[in-house]
Each structure stands twice: as C-alpha cells, then as structure tokens.
C-alpha cells in the first residue's frame, strides 16, 4: 500500500519526493507531444486548445500531432459539471502517477514514489510550495520543470497563495453525493449527467475548493490567463496534480460519515458513460497501452493500492444537529446521533429571482432578488415547523448564479446575500454566501461549445443565511439584496455577465 503525503509534511523546500517528481516531470516533458506518455499529451487529456497552447508556448507551428485515433480516444476528456468529476479525476491521477513513477524508476529513483497533495486549508501551508515557485533547481541552476511563469496568483502579481478566508469546505457538509441541476443542491460530487466535458452546473466540491483554487493559482485577466485558470491548459501546470490529489483526498474524507455521505449506487454512475454507449474513460498506461476504467473501479482507493496520510474530518460533522439547535429544536437535535446527517428532501422550487442580465465589471455589482410570496412562505413555514417540533428536516435554500458567461476564466468573486445597499460587504462575513471562480467559463460561453454558449451555473448553499434572516424576522421581505465583490476589479472587456440570480428551496 502506497501513501500519498502532504507536500508540506515532506520537509524542507526540496524534499526528496518533490525532487523526484521534478525529474519525472522533466522526463515526461522531454517526450514528443505525439507520445501518449508525454507531459503535454497527458495535459491534453484534460483539455486542449490550439490557440491557448500556442500562445502559452506549449505548441509550436508545424509540430507533429498525435494520431487522430489517439486524440479522439484520449484528449478533451476531463469531466466537469458532472457526477463523474471525482471518479474521472481519480483515474486520471492514478494513471499520471504511474507514468511519473515509471519515469522516476527509469532514472533509478524510488519504486514507491507517490504524488504528494497540497492541503491549502492548513495555516502556513496555503502558499504555493516553494519548489514550484522558483525557476531554479535546488543547485541554483535554471529550468526547474515544476516552475511555470503563467501563475499569476489572486492579486495578479505572481504571488501565489490561497487566502484561507476565501476558501471553504462547505461542500463536505452535503450529505448527498448526487445533486440536481434544477436549482437545488448540486450535491457533494455533482449532477447526474452523461459523459460531460464541461457540464453546466458544477457540484459542491467542484465549485469550492476546486474551481476557486484553480482560479486563484492561475490568476490572470481577459488578456492573459494563468495555466491553472482554464481547463484547457490547467494540467500543463505541475501544481495541478497536487491540487487534484487534495480534492481526491477530500472525497475520502467526505465518505467518513456514514450512513449518509455515500457514493452513488446507480448503475449509470458505477458503470460509467461507456455502459450507455458514450465515450469511455480511457488513459494511456506507462507502456502506452490504453487503460479503460469506470467509476466503480475508483470507489475504493485501498483496492487501487494507495491511501492518504490524513483523512481526518475537515468540517464540523454535525451541521444538521447544530442547525436544529439554532432553529429552536434542541430536543430534536439532542435526539440525533452526533455527526449524523439528513438526506435532503426532493422537492425543488424557485423562490425568487433577480431581473435578467447582471453585469459584473469594476469592483462591485449588485442586484436584488424579488421573492415570490407563496414560495417564501413555504420556506418560513418549514423553518417555523422545526421550532414547533412539527418537523426535523427544514428546507435548504440555494442561490443560483445562472448562465454565467464571459471571457476571463480567472475571474473570482465573493457573493453576499442580505447586505444593505449602503453597507460595506466586507464587514458582513455572516452574509457571505460563497466564493466563485469562473473555471471553464470561456469555453462554456462559445456559441459552438458544448452547450450552445449558455455558460455555467453556480449553486451556493445559503441555508445558514436564510436561517439567520428567519430568526431575526427579516425573511418576510419582498426583495433580498445580492452583492458580487470581485477579488480584483473586472474589466468590461472580460464581458462577465450573469443571466439571472435566483433563489431555490429544497425540502419535502
């Protein structure tokens, strides 16, 4: 059994596993693009775009491309906006790790080498690991293969870090793996789809921390994009793999809370899209031969031969119990087993929406959601019923940012709900609904892209905010203010536009 370890726990700036990683990456980078085990071929499996690659210096004019059959089988395969997001990326990590290990072994390196993970949630570990931030090898000579100049960071100044105040693990509290695309919970793992290379609605763990970290590390703007900011270039950056190892680890952490927090049992998920005639998940092994896999193959990493050194719970497990206490049902809360979760109700309904067309430019944008009185009363009744002891599963409430389009994947912003128009949003942390990074927005906005240019939809769980408004008797209003605050001012050339901001309830 091999163990993947925290990169910051390996010791020093250039611990041996990172040094070997760098050597393995260098070996893969030395291979021609057409070779299925080359660095760039593996990156193109996640996503490829000729213009972006050429602009970033990863594709030369007239360079020999892989065979058409290999491109069709392997390239542009990453699963986003889909319940296949986690299992597809687990297979991708595994195959990549095996390829790097094979390169390391060929260099007389350790046969038990594993990919480290970057746990940016830990204090003092949220900065880009030093070995990735220097253009030099440890001996001071240049050409460090882990270094990428196209990492601009959250402030676009090349200082790459993940602000602990902005990244969160709220998705870990979602008891359901599979979500819905109808406005309710997008689930921990994503929405039930077919093969989806760029799906519309991102799942909980995909939105935060996955997308957010991609956007912050890559950075950039409408004129230049960091490699990590765009799915079509992200896997060219060596830090991509450590970020995804952390996401993969969080999947294991999430599953530590049965009887909820279970992987899907649906055959369509277990057997994967190939079982219904769609494209198979397929990756090249170190010998160049294809390896096809399904989500069912990915559910047990111990069977796959690896584990993580730390899968301690990452979020308070008794979210629902605390909620019942907050809503005035201490007895129901006490009756609940510590850590137990409750599966969300199935009824999803629109409660209110803003007018169409919210433009995000400059340092702030705001709009107001008009609430439908009958739907709002259902939410209030559901919350009140808990205090009366008449129900133990109050509605959950979600904010949807629908049809988000634009030309800058690196755009990242915070969303506040219920902050008065004249107030400073930064002073209202309790009204922060979430943070969104528009990973994949450019390709989702192309009229001839996967979904006809309709853009992406992000779903934020605002149950806590709505609970607080209810308890303050501030929910019986006609409108709720929504404020969007970008990390950096957004230029109008980025053309960031949100089709509509809406509020949904999900309950019984």
């Amino acid at each position: 059994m091999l163990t993947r370890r925290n990169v910051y726990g390996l010791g020093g700036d250039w611990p041996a596993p990172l040094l070997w990683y760098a050597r393995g990456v260098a070996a893969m980078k030395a291979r021609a693009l057409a070779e299925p085990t080359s660095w760039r071929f593996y990156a193109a499996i996640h996503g490829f775009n000729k213009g972006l690659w050429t602009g970033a210096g990863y594709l030369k004019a007239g360079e020999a491309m892989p065979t058409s059959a290999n491109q069709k089988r392997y390239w542009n395969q990453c699963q986003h906006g889909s319940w296949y997001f986690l299992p597809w990326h687990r297979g991708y990590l595994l195959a990549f790790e095996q390829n790097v290990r094979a390169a390391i072994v060929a260099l007389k390196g350790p046969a038990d080498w594993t990919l480290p993970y970057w746990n940016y949630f830990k204090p003092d570990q949220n900065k880009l690991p030093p070995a990735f931030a220097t253009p030099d090898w440890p001996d001071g000579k240049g050409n460090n293969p882990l270094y990428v100049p196209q990492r601009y960071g959250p402030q676009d100044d090349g200082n790459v870090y993940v602000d602990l105040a902005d990244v969160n693990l709220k998705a870990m509290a979602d008891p359901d793996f599979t979500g819905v695309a109808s406005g309710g919970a997008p689930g921990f793992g994503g929405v039930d789809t077919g093969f989806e290379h760029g799906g519309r609605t991102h799942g909980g763990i995909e939105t935060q921390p996955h997308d957010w970290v991609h956007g912050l590390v890559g950075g950039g703007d409408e004129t230049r994009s960091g490699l990590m900011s765009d799915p079509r270039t992200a896997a060219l950056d060596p830090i991509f793999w450590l970020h995804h190892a952390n996401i993969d680890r969080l999947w294991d952490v999430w599953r530590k809370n049965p009887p909820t927090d279970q992987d899907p049992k649906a055959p369509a998920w277990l057997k994967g899209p190939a079982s219904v005639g769609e494209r198979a998940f397929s990756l090249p092994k170190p010998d160049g031969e294809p390896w096809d896999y399904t989500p069912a193959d990915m559910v047990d990493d111990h069977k796959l031969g690896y584990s993580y050194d730390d899968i301690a719970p990452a979020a308070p497990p008794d979210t629902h119990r605390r909620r019942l206490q907050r809503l005035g049902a201490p007895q129901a809360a006490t009756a609940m087993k510590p850590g137990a979760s409750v599966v969300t109700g199935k009824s999803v309904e629109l409660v209110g929406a803003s007018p169409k067309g919210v433009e995000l430019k400059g340092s702030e944008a705001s709009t107001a959601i008009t609430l439908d009185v009958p739907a709002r009363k259902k939410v209030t009744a559901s919350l009140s019923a808990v205090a009366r002891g008449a129900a133990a599963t109050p509605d959950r409430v979600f904010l949807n940012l629908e049809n988000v389009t634009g030309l800058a994947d690196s755009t990242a912003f915070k969303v506040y709900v219920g902050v008065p128009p004249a107030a400073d949003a930064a002073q209202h942390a309790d009204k922060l609904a979430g943070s969104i990074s528009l990973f994949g927005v450019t390709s989702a906005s192309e009229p001839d892209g996967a979904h006809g240019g309709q853009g992406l939809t992000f779903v934020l769980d605002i149950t806590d905010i709505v609970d607080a408004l209810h308890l303050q008797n501030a929910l019986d209003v006609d409108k709720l203010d929504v404020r969007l605050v970008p990390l950096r001012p957004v230029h109008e050339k980025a053309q960031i536009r949100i089709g509509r901001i809406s509020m949904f309830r999900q309950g019984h």
Partner: protein
Amino acid sequence: MTQAARERRQVRVPILVASALAWGLLVLGPASSVVRAHCSGAVHRLSPTISFRMALAHNPPGPLALHWLVMTVAMMLPLMTTPIRHLRDRSLRNRRARGIALFLAGYFTIWLTAGFALSALEWGINILWVGSSTSFVLVGLCLALYEVSPLKQACLNRGHSHPAVEAFGRAADLDALRFGWTHGAWCVGSCWALMLLPLLFNRGHLAAMALVTLWLVAEHLEGLVAPGWRLRRPRKAIQILVAESKRLVSSLASRSLS
C-alpha cells in the same frame, strides 16, 4: 434512480405520450391524405399556375395548419425534453404550466409558418419537376448539401442554448414565448430539409416520417462541434444501441443460467 433522472422522467413521459398520440392521429387519421391526393399524375399534366391554385384549393390553411401541427408534435416533441425541463425548473411553481404553454405556442408558431413555406416548396417541386428522376435527384442533392453544411451545424449548436428567463409577470410570459420561437427558429434551421423529405414521397410517407424522426433524435444525441462541412453520422445513437443490445443479451444469458 437519481432525483435528476426522476425529474427528467417527469417531463419526458408526458412528452412521449403526446408524441405517440400525434403519431396515432397521423397513422389513423386523414391528416396527410389531401397533399398526397393532389400529387397524382393527372393534376400534374396541367399548367404550373393551375396546379398551384389547385394545390391551394385542396389544402386550405386550416387543415394544412392542423396537419403540420400534428406532424411537428409527433416528430419534434421528443426533442423538446431539455428545453421544457429548463423552463419548468427555472419558473415559479404557479407559472410552470403557463410558461411551458407559451413556450410551445412560440415554438409551434414558428414551425407552422415554416410548414406553410415547406408545403409551398413541396408543391413547387412536385409541379415543376413531376416525373423527372433527374430533377428529383437534383432536389435530393440540394437537401443533402444543406445537411452537411456549416449552417446546419450552427443551427444545431444554437438549439442547445437555454437562456435565463424572467420569473415574474409579463416579462416572464414574453421570455417563455421568446424562448419558444427562438428555439423553434434554430430547430427549423436544423430540421427543415429533413422535414421536407417525407413530403416528397407519394408513397411510404409515414414510414419516411418515422425514419426522419429517428434520424433527428440520433442527430440531437451527438455532441456539438464547430460549424463546418461534414457528414454527420449517428455515432452516439449506434453506440447506445450496441451497449443496450449487449446489456440485453447479458441479462438474458444470466437469466437462462439461473
């Protein structure tokens, strides 16, 4: 079954039932007989102007519109699950039915307008080029050319776009209607040549319609690609059929073993 699958079924089942009823009307009813009767050889020996007037006389607007409505419900409704779901999901509960009705009104208005144009085109083709196999081949080639054109692909791509809609009042009604006719326009753009095809057959009209419907469904299963000149093969539909056949064979084999 996942909740998303249940939500899909909630919309898909009534749509398929409505489509099946429309197919029933087409098979059992006289809906398409007038056009076919007009296209008999005796009429075609008359001058084009007289033939066209006779075609108009035999196909008054009311029954012709009804014919096209039934035909498009039968053939096009199975393709509408996703846009109808989108509108249903994004509308207030008490406005869902109204929104979908307005969407369908907009959608079928576009198709009825296109239907009149396609009928006129069909009459023209039949009257001017009756009996000429060369002309028939020429028309076929023109339709085939459109089918492989970038314009067709652009229409297919845009038909996959589902916009944000207003939630309240007249603005919501107008958006539902606008979504319907916009979707209808892209649908006409991508399907008109295939819809014209069955009309050109004097015999086997319904069989041709059924084949075209299957082709349209297969075509909509394909992923979107950049517009360009290309043959569109129903790869995904074939793969689905193969996968389902394998599953059926394996299920039958395991049953017979047990």
